[in-house]
């Protein structure tokens, strides 16, 4: 039985955190995918919420486009907010 579709699984570890991709699995439909995810990825109390997404619905950037996509950002250090002096009086930043 290799005809079950592939699902990507996202688990939120705690309230306040965002869902993180943890892996993938096979399941016949979304409801069973959620249950399989519960059994495979949260059996050691890893999460409080699960998302499953059909892997076929994910549009991914191509490794071939890596240079065009990501390299131009490499030498633009001014985009990092490291050139501002933070006054001593400012707290909780």
């Amino acid at each position: 039985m290799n005809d079950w579709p592939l699902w990507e699984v996202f688990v939120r570890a705690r309230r306040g955190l965002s869902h993180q991709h943890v892996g993938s699995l096979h399941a016949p439909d979304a409801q069973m995918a959620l249950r399989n995810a519960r059994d495979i990825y949260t059996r050691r109390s890893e999460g409080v919420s699960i998302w499953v997404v059909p892997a076929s619905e994910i549009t991914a950037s191509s490794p071939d486009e890596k240079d065009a996509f990501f390299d131009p950002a490499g030498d633009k250090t001014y985009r990092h907010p490291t050139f501002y002096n933070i006054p001593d009086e400012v707290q909780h930043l």
Partner: protein
Amino acid sequence: MSSLTALDARTRYVLGLGDDALIMSHRLGEWITRAPQLEEDVALANLGLDLLGQARALLTHAGALEGAGRDEDALAYRRDERDFLNLQIVEIPNGDFAVTTARALAFSAYQFELYTRLAESSDETLAAIAAKAVKEVAYHRDHATQWTLRLGDGTEEGHRRMQAGLAVVWPYVDEIFEPDPNTAAAVHDGVAVDVTVMYEPWRQYVHGVIDEATLAVPEASFRATGGRQGIHTESMGYLLAEMQHLHRAHPGATW
């Protein structure tokens, strides 16, 4: 000769529930490496481990109530067939995945009704075990429900197999709701749950699922009985031989 005649009603009751969980756990464990999908393999093993945890707590409690120094291992591995008090529904062979699903639906729906009520038991240890276990079996019931719906209301082959699976399991359903005279005193003391009050809610749930799955509630071809008295089916001896042989060959072995 059975050593059980001396047990009081409460000990006998707890032992029966522990044996249900233990033997059902063993049957689920038999699916490991054999399930139709890797994901289902993990799921069935998880359900089995939940039940093993319940069995350990219940057998430990039964051993303490008996007061003869028997721990969970002594009760699980050193009793013979006639001293096991589980319902026969948990010991019948797994069959195909549809038989396993049909058994899981009937048994987990019963365990859900049982533990819900047992959480109010006058025996505090038993109540605590039940309160924890009811969350586990709620998931077991859901898992069995999901598969019953998908097999029954899916392909023609799935429907045929699921209907056949229900037919295999149904002769063992009545026994679940048969009052056991040996534990009647525990019901009277508020320790045990009266099985007869659980039938109607069980029927509503299970028949509802079978209906929704476009399946028919089967007529039982015969009526099994005797598990709570230590009477078991042919397959029980084989199950115990596999479950107990390591402990009996190497007493006290640990890992």
